[in-house]
Structure formats: C-alpha cells, structure tokens
C-alpha cells in the first residue's frame, strides 16, 4: 500500500495511521513531501510512537516486511524493486519529479509494477499534481485507489488531479479512508487465497 501527501498531510497521518492494525497482510509505504531527511526521520519516529504498526524511516535496499510502515526520507526518491521472493526499497537522488523529491508518482508507479492487482494507492491532501500519475498506474495495474475528499483536505489540488484522470475508485472523507482500506486489504487477501 502506498500513501502520498504533502501540505496538511502530517495532521492527516496522525489522524488515520494509528488506527491501522499491525497486520501481516500488508505493508505501508509513505511519501510526505519534505526536503529534509532529518524532518522525515522525526516524522517517522513520532508516527511510530502513535501507531500499532511499526513505523521506520526507509533506508536503501531495505526489505519490505508486512505489518510495517516505511516513511521515505526527505530528499530521496523511492522505488520498490523485486529481489527474488522479496520486495525491497531502492532510494536514489534522481531529478525532482513534479518539482519534488520524494515524488509520490515515482513510488506508486513502482508499487504498481511490483504488486500489480494487490497494490492500493491512497492520495491525501496536498499541493500540486504529484501522485495523480502514480494512482493511474496502480489503477491500470488492477489495484485499488482512494483519494481524500475536498471537505476534509487542507489542500485539494493533489486529490483533484487524480480524480480528473478518472483513476480513483473512491473519494472519501479522511475518517472513512481507514475503514475502506481495511475492507480492501481483506478483499485482496481473500482473492489471493482463492487464486493460490
């Protein structure tokens, strides 16, 4: 699951992530537009104090473990890569995308490529258009997408761009995103069990 946000997103994460249970069915990858690694590291530490999930700052080549949330460090793009049976996080300082690094599009496109129909993209409050193409990639890969609605978004630009691309399954108030996500995870686990 990839969740992206920018302005107003810290408050949004403090409101929804603590309610996500520590569950072996999923891992969460988090991009908040921040330019300093020190700030994103502090954010990961604060989130970890508030959450049932273990929240870590992502480091290069780190293996993605279920029941864990990873905050992508400020100043770095992150992509998920397949390494044998595992998925790992690759960090790099490539050119800014949509004026930002980390970019939500970069992360979500890689999540779509690796996890395909099992991927979930969530786009919360934020400035600019980052995240819209990433959400489209997840949708095109057969995954599921949710965007925060205008009423509960501090800044609606990012969710609006994704909605305009017609790649968002559900537009929800922040408070309903958690329940919808849990429902989606359960559905995907059951579908995968049937397929196996």
């Amino acid at each position, binding site marked *: 699951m990839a969740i992206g946000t920018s*302005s*107003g997103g810290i408050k949004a994460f403090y409101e929804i992530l603590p309610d996500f249970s520590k569950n072996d069915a999923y891992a969460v990858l988090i991009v908040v537009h921040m330019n300093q690694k020190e700030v994103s590291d502090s954010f990961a530490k604060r989130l970890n104090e508030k959450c049932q999930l273990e929240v870590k700052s992502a480091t290069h080549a780190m293996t993605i473990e279920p029941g864990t949330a990873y905050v992508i460090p400020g100043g770095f793009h992150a992509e998920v890569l397949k390494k044998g049976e595992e998925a790992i996080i690759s960090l790099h300082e490539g050119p800014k995308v949509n004026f930002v690094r980390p970019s939500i599009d970069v992360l979500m496109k890689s999540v779509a490529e690796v996890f395909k129909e099992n991927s979930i993209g969530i786009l919360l409050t934020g400035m600019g258009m*980052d995240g819209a193409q990433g959400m489209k990639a997840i949708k095109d890969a057969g995954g599921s997408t949710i965007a925060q609605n205008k009423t509960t978004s501090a800044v609606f*630009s990012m969710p609006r761009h994704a909605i305009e691309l017609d790649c968002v399954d559900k537009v929800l108030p922040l408070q309903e995103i958690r329940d919808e996500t849990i429902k989606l995870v359960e559905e995907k686990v059951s579908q995968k069990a049937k397929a196996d």
Partner: protein
Amino acid sequence: MSKKVMIVDDDKSIVELVQIVLKRKGYEVYGAFGGEECIKSIGGINPDILIMDVMMPDMNGWEVLKKLKEDGILEHIKVIMLTVVKEPFEEYSDLSPYVLDYITKPCSNEDILEGVKRLSEL
C-alpha cells in the same frame, strides 16, 4: 531551548494575538506586518517555524516564500500557511516540501497552537 516562531500577517491584531498565545506556551515569537518586513528581518531571526498569511497587500505569502527560497533562507524552516483558499496556484507547487501545514481561515488560537506544536516536534 525554546523554538523560534515567526508570524507574518498584515493584520496587526492577528500578529499580536498569536504572539501572546504562543509566548504563553513558551515559544520565542517574532512578528512581521507584511511580506517585505518578513524578508528584511527573517535573516536575523532564523525561525524554526514560519506562519505565513497568503493575502497581504504588499506581497502575497507564496511570493514571500519564493523569495526566501531563492535566497536560500527557507531550507531549514517549516512553514504553516494561513489561507482561505484550498487550492493554491500550480506555479507554487515547488514550495510544497516547505509548507508542512496549512490552516484554513477563519481559524482559532487552538488551531494555530496545534499546528505549531505538530511542527515543533519534528
């Protein structure tokens, strides 16, 4: 050490009120009554957190941030924008990594205190 907060608003009563509220909570608070005053004085203050109004007669808050970014002053400052608009112009999208919080006006003292507390913990 207490965190330094700077509030920029052309409405003097708002600047003074926020200064009182934040000082009571132990923050070191500085005010500027407009964009130009902010640009002139911020270098000597070097705040941890900048609370910036958007609609100001001399310069809009986004233009002030743009100038501070160009001057290399914004790099280590966490910004809270105060505005009535939920969708800023796309041309300011590159400021997104600096604007970590966004408070919609009208807002209460509590909203501002919570925003400052959230960012001062990072």
